[in-house]
């Protein structure tokens, strides 16, 4: 039987550790992905994810379900990311692993993609990381929450504690900066065009 987040939270609050571990299992990957994209460091992102769940667990008695569990945990994670950035006092620099793991990429992509395509994809991914690192923290977070976590403008506004219009502006400005950087780095991929709206 699959429990909802709310049910698992209720069971966790009554002392059921397994229920909370199920919540962790359900949310560890998105929280880690969020932390990684915001701070750009693999190990630190893992630490942030761990710390997020620990804080949530300890704060569980005070969580009355006024927000969704996911929103609550995203907020904790974002606060920790912000603390991390403040502590490091630097713009996050995306970490590009030294070892080229083509075999892993190949296993993920399927048989139609050639090694050249895999390398190109990897290079492009690095360009995106670089471009993301250029964005101010608020814009980067807004883009990440929208692009990779599929949140609504309202949810992002709630998490960032700003008006909805600010979220839209941050997204537009963020996307514009990313577009410019991607065009510079890879002109063929980002050729301006005048049609093709979906």
């Amino acid at each position, binding site marked *: 039987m699959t429990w909802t987040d709310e049910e698992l939270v209720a069971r966790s609050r009554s002392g059921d*550790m397994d229920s*909370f*571990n199920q919540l*962790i299992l359900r949310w*560890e990957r998105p929280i*880690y*992905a969020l932390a*990684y*994209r915001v701070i750009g460091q*693999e190990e630190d*992102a*893992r*630490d942030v*994810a*761990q*710390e997020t*769940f*620990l804080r949530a*667990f*300890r704060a569980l008695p005070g969580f009355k379900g006024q927000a969704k569990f996911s929103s609550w945990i995203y907020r904790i994670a974002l606060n920790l990311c912000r603390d991390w950035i403040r502590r490091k006092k630097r713009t996050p620099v995306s970490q590009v*692993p030294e070892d080229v793991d*083509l*075999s*892993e990429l*190949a*296993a993920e992509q399927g*048989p139609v993609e*050639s*090694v050249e395509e895999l390398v190109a*994809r990897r290079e*492009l*991914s690095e360009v*995106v*990381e670089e471009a*993301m690192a250029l964005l101010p923290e608020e814009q980067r977070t807004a*883009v990440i929450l*929208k*692009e990779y976590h599929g949140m609504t*403008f309202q949810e992002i506004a709630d998490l960032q504690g700003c008006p909805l*219009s600010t979220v*839209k*502006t941050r*997204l*537009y*400005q963020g*996307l*514009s900066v*990313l*577009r410019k950087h*991607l065009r510079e780095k*890879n002109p063929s*991929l*980002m050729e*301006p*065009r*005048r*049609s*093709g*709206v*979906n």
Partner: protein
Amino acid sequence: MKKVPEGHSPLNRSPYCGDPGALVSYLYNDGSAAELAAIGAHVQACDTCAAEIASLGDTRDVLSIWSPPQTELGLTLSASDALPVSSPSPAPVPSMAMAVADDLPWWRQSTPVWMQAVAATMVFAAGMAIGTGRGVSPSSSGTTASATPTSAPAVGVSRSELAALEERLRGELTRLATASAPAHPVAVRNTDDEAMTKRFRALLSESEERQRGESALRTAQLLRDIEIQRKLDIATIQNDIGKIQAVTGAELRQQRELQNQLINRVGLQK
């Protein structure tokens, strides 16, 4: 004031034209149905906005390529994590307890072994310095002891002993002052001084003995603590190494399998 894009006359200008909020709403299809329909109608009629939407859409396509590394997370919590943690966990993957170690006040964090060793050395050196200082010359030691009666407990001579000594000295002085002139005053004074010096020396040597004993005992206790901590650390490190070896072995196995898969695929494609 909103900037009108090139090629737009005020006559065909829509409130949505060039509006970042409207463009982003349309791009992500996030807004009320009526609003999205109105923006859509404008985009159909406006080449500039259509091109902008298309270009931003291309950017989004490229962004979708970026994914975080596929790290094995395996986070879990135990009941003990609900309680405040006093020492870091020795797990190879940074544990929940480790993650909050930074939040603990410094006096609640465990003291490293090297710091304990330094403290032990300093205590030992201080004890030795006090003992050596007192042993240099009996006369100077006597002066120090009588000049600092308030630090008696630390030095080793008790307050009551010093008080008794002072009383005895006062008594001697009074007796000498009130007594009739002695036949051999210098000889009497010399005898008293010798007795006094002997008494001082005896007290000092007693105190030094006690001090040395206490220092040795304290040092032995610290050394024992350090040894226990060292053994614990070694056990923890060995445990960690074992876990790391297990993880590394599994990863290597996985890598080999993946490489084999890749080779097979490449062979099939050829």
